[in-house]
């Protein structure tokens, strides 16, 4: 087991470091570092988006949820696909047309204000960290369980690799690691699904029937995990709207030349990712049937090991060589998945700190290209160190809660501000600051008094606060803007911004 695991891990590691070396030699400018040169093809960006979005939460989390709770896991999975309709239709093109490297670029372009940029930066960094920490913790747990390295060491290794990938290879390395990982993930998923189908004579309803006879029809019903009747819709809203507020997803649109390529890359993602999410339901049900819900529950992590355990079973079961090989392979892919996502998050956060805070807010843009690149690389090291520290501190914390929180904050603090900046003439800096503040406070506050933190004594009944915090975020932004005096110059400026957002030219 150890030999195979080590061999497979080291091979994948070698591949990703090779990619980083190749990318580092091509990274000479800020455009290379933040946007991979800005000229990726739709296919490349599509695969990279898929690699970014098909995170360990999807790979392990969705399959685990289906294995333990049935249909609720499928509701999670399909939400991850639908989430890209608002991005495709509302956000992607205007963002690409009005920003340079970060989300705050768009807000700052509209408002021409450092305060607005700063507020947007806060929203971005909080969301990124909330998303990053559970990835680190997840990596720590996963590697610990499958390879036997202590948690702290695993977290440190992931953090160190992430620093190397991004500091040296920037967005180019990140992109190609994401592409490679997307391909590996798709192949794994297809192999698993074909194998499972074959075991049921290529009649998938047989799988449903088997699971139903073992666990009863209630298992296939909704409500086993999302127990409150408003939970599904709050989750749905969170995905549908929060994804369009996730900086590490949005900055991927800066890697392409124009709106057409951006759109086409989203189509690639929606088919790749959508297909993959569909497969997680089959894989999860198969895990429930072949491995058993009890075994999955006993393995800990809230079902996160359902897919690896199924792979082990299909390889020959625990203790067999085939099982060990399959398990190692799946673990290595999960590891690569996490690395790809944390790299993307690090590029996004580096953009916020180096490009937004240092270059634009502090220095007002008066920084040479060379210095900008240097600061970008330095910030990566700082972010990596912070991520390692927070990851270590997060040991034992229910990481699924943090991921939900990240998307909820994105839905409440980032999405309203982005949309209003792009589409509302009357919006202004005060609105941006108010929107981010109210969105942040309400989403974090409601999550803190919700079931995820307070369990059965929760004051707020929903796990996902979005249903309430997103409207509050919008309200805060709108009221904040209306309370500020009208600014005729800014409103006329909106015309220019609006024109550029939809035509790609000022």
């Amino acid at each position, binding site marked *: 087991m150890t030999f195979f695991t080590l061999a497979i891990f080291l091979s994948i590691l070698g591949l990703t470091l090779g990619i980083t070396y190749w990318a580092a030699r091509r990274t000479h400018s800020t455009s290379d570092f933040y946007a991979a040169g800005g000229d990726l093809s739709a296919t490349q960006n599509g695969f990279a988006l898929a690699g970014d979005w098909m995170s360990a939460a999807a790979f392990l989390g969705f399959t685990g949820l289906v294995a333990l709770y049935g*249909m609720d896991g*499928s509701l999670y999975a399909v939400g991850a696909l*639908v989430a890209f309709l608002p991005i495709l239709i509302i956000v992607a093109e205007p963002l690409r047309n009005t920003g340079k490297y970060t989300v705050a670029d768009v807000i700052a372009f509209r408002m021409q204000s450092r305060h607005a940029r700063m507020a947007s930066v806060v929203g971005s960094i909080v969301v990124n960290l909330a998303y990053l920490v559970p990835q680190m913790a997840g990596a720590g747990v996963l590697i610990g369980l499958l390879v036997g390295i202590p948690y702290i060491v695993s977290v440190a290794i992931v953090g160190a690799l992430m620093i190397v990938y991004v500091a040296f290879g920037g967005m180019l390395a990140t992109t190609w690691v994401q592409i490679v990982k997307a391909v590996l993930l798709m192949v794994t998923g297809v192999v698993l699904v074909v194998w499972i189908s074959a075991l049921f004579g290529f009649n998938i309803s047989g799988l449903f029937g088997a699971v139903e006879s073992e666990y009863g029809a209630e298992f296939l019903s*909704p409500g086993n995990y999302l127990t409150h009747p408003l939970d599904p819709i709050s989750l749905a809203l969170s995905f549908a709207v929060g994804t369009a507020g996730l900086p590490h997803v949005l900055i991927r649109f800066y890697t392409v030349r124009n709106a057409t390529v951006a759109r086409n890359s989203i189509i690639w993602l*929606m088919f790749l990712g959508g297909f993959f999410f*569909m497969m997680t339901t089959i894989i999860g049900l198969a895990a429930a049937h072949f491995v058993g819900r009890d075994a999955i529950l006993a393995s800990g992590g809230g079902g996160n090991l359902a897919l690896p355990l199924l792979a082990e079973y299909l390889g020959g079961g625990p203790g067999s060589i085939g099982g060990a090989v399959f398990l190692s392979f799946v673990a290595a892919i999960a590891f690569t998945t996490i690395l790809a996502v944390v790299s993307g998050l690090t590029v996004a956060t580096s953009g916020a700190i180096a490009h937004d805070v240092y270059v634009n807010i502090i220095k007002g843009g008066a920084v040479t290209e060379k210095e900008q690149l240097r600061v970008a690389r330095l910030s990566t090291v700082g972010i990596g160190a912070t991520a390692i520290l927070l990851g270590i501190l997060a040991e034992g914390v229910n990481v699924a809660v943090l991921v939900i929180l990240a998307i909820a904050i994105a839905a409440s603090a980032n999405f309203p501000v982005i949309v209003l900046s792009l589409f509302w003439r009357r919006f202004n800096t005060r609105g941006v600051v108010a929107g981010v503040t109210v969105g942040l406070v309400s989403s974090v506050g409601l999550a803190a008094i919700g079931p995820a933190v307070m369990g059965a004594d929760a004051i707020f009944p929903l796990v996902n606060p979005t249903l309430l915090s997103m409207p509050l975020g919008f309200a805060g932004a709108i009221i904040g803007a209306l309370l500020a005096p009208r600014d005729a110059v800014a409103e006329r400026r909106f015309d220019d911004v609006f024109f550029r957002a939809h035509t790609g030219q000022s």
Partner: protein
Amino acid sequence: MNNNDPSPQPRKSNVDEPAFRQLVRVKRRSAWPALGVGVGFYLAVSLLAGYAPSLLSTPVLGPINLGFVLILFTYVLTWVIAVLYVRRANRTFDRLAEAARGAASKEIQA
């Protein structure tokens, strides 16, 4: 004509160009239905999941119940909407955006 006319003509903004106005109109006409149907259907299924779980548990295709069928349909619907939207965008939006940009640069030269 009074040479001391104190009210100059307001600068004509790019957004007033007919090509741009049409682009915005076409985009709006595509966006609302696409979002409404796509996201709306998903939200509707989510509401049903919360408030009518027994309905979604009804077996439809052998042991596969209505809920899973609706979820499968959500995938297909999302894909269809995305493809149709992008097709229209690639054909129509880009052509209009090009025209709007052209009109804008002529305005600058004038």
